[in-house]
């Protein structure tokens, strides 16, 4: 009998090369970090039951579910608005999976953990580079920490939200993209960031 190993492979495993890309000899203006192996559950309220779902979610997460394009952080998860009466639960370490959430939340749950790739973008030129990809106004006043958008980049649907600032005060933008488009969008990101210099990393930790 053959022994099988089930190795999880990120859709960016081939394209993502850790190190520096684009302009060299300057401090890289862009930092791109792929966050791997997360749990992402889409939760949708059943018809007329958004309030009940909201209460159940509040009980589980300790915060109100966002009812507008926003992302809310809890101690062990991020809740991201994804449409009217629906949201994503993003977490790590198996705390909030289909198995644990289905009994707790009365709604329609769908596992999206493998359907998306998560890339976090920061750096002095992050907004400049994102302006090439996104039609969303990312000015600090218009897109503060916790702001989110269901939008598109390079003709590809994405969920974009601003996470907590880095310790050096720089803004962090998270992009949740469809897995099968990820390599293509990744190359567009590298093209767009090349003139500023790009630091490339991947991590298992959620920021």
């Amino acid at each position: 009998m053959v022994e099988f190993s089930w190795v999880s492979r990120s859709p960016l495993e081939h394209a993502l090369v850790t190190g520096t890309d684009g302009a060299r000899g300057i401090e890289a203006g862009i930092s791109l970090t792929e966050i791997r192996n997360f749990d992402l559950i889409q939760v949708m309220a059943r018809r007329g039951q958004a309030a009940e779902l909201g209460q159940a979610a509040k009980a589980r997460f300790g915060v109100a579910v966002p009812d507008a394009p926003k992302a809310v952080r809890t101690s062990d998860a991020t809740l991201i608005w994804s449409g009217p009466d629906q949201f994503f639960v993003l977490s790590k370490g198996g705390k909030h999976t289909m198995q644990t959430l289905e009994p707790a939340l009365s709604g329609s749950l769908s596992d999206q953990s493998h359907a998306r790739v998560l890339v976090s973008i920061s750096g002095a030129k992050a907004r400049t580079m994102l302006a090439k990809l996104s039609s969303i106004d990312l000015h600090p006043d218009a897109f503060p920490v916790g702001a989110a958008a269901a939008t598109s980049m390079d003709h590809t649907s994405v969920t974009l939200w601003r996470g907590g600032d880095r310790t050096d005060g720089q803004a962090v933008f998270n992009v949740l993209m469809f897995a099968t488009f990820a390599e293509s969008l990744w190359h567009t990101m590298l093209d767009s960031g090349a003139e500023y210099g790009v630091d490339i990393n991947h991590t298992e930790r959620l920021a």
Partner: protein
Amino acid sequence: MAGAQTHRLGNGGLVDRSAPLNFRFDGKAFSGFQGDTLASALIANGVKLVGRSFKYHRPRGILTAGSEEPNALVELRTGARREPNTKATTAELYDGLEAASQNRWPSLRHDVMSVNQLFAPIFVAGFYYKTFMWPAKFWEAIYEPAIRRAAGLGRAAGIADPDHYDKAWAHCDVLIAGSGPAGLAAALAAGRAGARVILCEEDFVLGGRLLSDGGMIDGEPAAEWISRTLAELAGMPDVRVMTRTTLFGVYDGGTYGAIERVNDHLPSPPEHQVRQRLWRIVAKRCVVAAGAIERPIVFAGNDTPGVMMASAMRTYVARYAATPAKRIALFTNNEDGWRTVETALGAGLQIAAVIDARPEISPAHRSLASKGGFPVLHGSVSGVDGGKDGVRKIAVSLTGGARAEVEADGLAVSGGWNPAVGLTSYHRGRPKWRSDISAFVPDGAPPGMVAAGAANGDFGLGACLSQGFAAGAAAAHDAGRTGNAGSAPVADDEVFSLTPLWHVAGKGKAFVDYQHDVTASDIELAQREGFESVEHLKRYTTLGMATDQGKTSNVAGLAIMAAVSGRSIPETGTTIYRPPYVPVAIGAFAGHHRDGTFHATRLTPSHHWAVEQGAVFVDTGLWKRAQWYPRAGEKDWLESVTREVKAVRSGVGFCDVSTLGKIDVHGPDAGAFLDRVYINTFSNLAVGKARYGLMLREDGIVYDDGTTSRLAEDHYFLTTTTAKAGLVMQHLEFCRQVLFPELDVQLTSVSDQWAQFSIAGPSARELLKQIVDESEDLSNEGFPFMGAREVTLRGGLKARLFRISFSGEMAFEISVPARFGDAMARNLMLAGAPFGVTPYGTEALGVMRVEKGHIAGPELSGTTTAADLGLGKMMSTKKDYIGRVMAGREALVAPDRQVVVGIKPTDETRRLRSGAHIIPKGQTPGPGNDQGYVTSVCFSPTLNQWIGLALVERGRERIGEIVHAHDPLRGEDYDVELCNPVFYDPDGGRQRG
């Protein structure tokens, strides 16, 4: 070594004499300075002749100093970067620049085609329309190529552009076009009020006309005011000043287009940088401070090199310290033209004469003339003596009828100023006539936009500053920014007294549109021939249709038409203004979307494994799909595909089918919802089972098909075709949200969540047993045909298993979370090795589906009904569903419809091809007896011959009939037999077994 800059002043100007730059024009070496344009550098070197005109090949010089230039168009750079029709007046000089003149042969000075001038009487407006009508077949072969060789401008590079372009978005409260006094004042006011401001300036230096005309602002020289203002703006973090950026269009919802020439001023962009960037700017308010364009007066010989706009002449002298002429005459009909005299005298140049068309001349100018020792002539220029070496003598018709001659080597012309009304008119706005300046000014503007200063027809420096400041403050306020803007900068207003003069009668060609060689007599001819409407005039004469869009010519053309047709200028009206304001390279619109990144690409979870296997890929929509997996020694695709089909039919193979659309349908009403979108019933599907479903469009035509499984009471898993995945999701969301909001159902795309593989062939079950946990029962009883359930794999991973078949073999589809897709492909190879497992691609998949008579894209063509596809019996009569009623229309149930049928060539060795028409045997093919066409074909390794599917009139009633296949595209004619479309295992025993 480059020649001396013979026409450069010893001091002054905004050029950096410590930074000399070498360049070549038509192969000859010259030098200029940092801060020059190509035009100013040519002028500094005494070059007057820079090009040949479009139609008559007349020698032409530099007319303007801006983006309105019609004459000085060059091919800039060489090789792949060669860019035709580049305006020398805006091209920044850089070291090593190479430019060439256009539309001349063999050289600029000796141009053979200038013989066209001798035939000028026949090259009038409409010449080509009138002359090359007959014989019609000569047009493409002879006339057009000959005309194209003779006319036209620069040559395209003809090879791929090596540079990159990109696109970006920007957002602001107040967008400002132009950095002259009005634009800078607007930026100051808006910035101080706290607004987010973007100011776009076409030039590479900020200041607009102030750079050439100077003046006093707030009691200090303009240059000092500019630096102080720029410093203040630089201190505002939300004010962004963009040079080399032209605002070229305004679109819906306050969106503007701008082109930034990021690196056009360098020989080539630095590594990783783009040449140009296209900006889409979203602005709450916009202040157009784009200034005005000085207009020529139309007179004989007005295109002679050395004839130049008065404002351009003083720009070259004041800003670039370059002298277009040593002895200058001025022809003006307004006060502003006299500024050129002041500038020229200040630079120590001679004034030959001023020809002023106005009845009155101010005492100040009279005393200037007597001090400068030059005559002031009341009258008009009626002719110019000169050729390719430029102006020599100027003929003047004096008021009262006498004639005079002026000797000069340069003629500055000012016919007044036209506000730049492009941006304000791009939403089909029509500017209005203002008689005090004899010019069109904006009459309203797109929402949120306002014009200020010269762009609004108010030319005085004081007015520009106060209007710009007020517009900036108001725009900021409208955008919700209420900070204190302070007070407006103050300056005096100059007098601008103008007596309209458009055209001076005289002997010789008088040009209206320099770039398209349209003369005053062309306009008169157009009027005589009935092309009086401005839109007809434009198209008949091509007035204003060149790359400069008639910036210097349109209004004069309208004025001449008005005069000859006895109407006023406002009665004559303007043509429609359309963006872009300046030509924008297609490369900028494409951005990074070229070559391999022309569009986004989707990759399946096993893509990189398939690459390792040497797969050949095919583009399927955005997807890259493995088409076949060639092996060493196979001579062509057919051999590889045939091997793959045989391997599946005799053993086992697998194929990544993750590209199918996958949708989670949740909710207590999920079954009821599916009953309404599919023609067959799903509410009665048992949990753990899959069913094939067909959905129609509202009009009764088949939309899509696929299998849907019930995974729980309130959870179905729906699949779509690859091609329609996105569209079906949209359709279902429309049904859910709009048509059936009463149903409690939720939809989620899970297309990317699951890696799905088809495992097919007699050994499929044996292979699967190696992969799934021993506890799973895969027997026919434990997991029958159309079963669907979760299984545990060896190693503990959960997967979904479906017993469905597209190939006609015993087959399964297995889904694992997508990041395990790569591992699944590798494990299938490992587990299947003892069974000779063979990965197969979309070609083998297609062969097996044709053998099995399954419909796919070519049959789901948007014209076929369920019955046409042989699936009429699936249409439930017990419920309503989308498309049911319309599917019952007479024509959709007519007995003579074209329906799916199998075809086999009567000559078993013959190859079939899709697209051939089906004609009754023995008849001559024609539209009257066309009975259908071949939709899908393949070489069937199983039957060892070509087979196909076709849509044929009454096809199912005609099984066994020999018909004729007529393929005029490929010149093929042959007979085929109509047969059962299920060529392989018609009883379905293999897939159920």
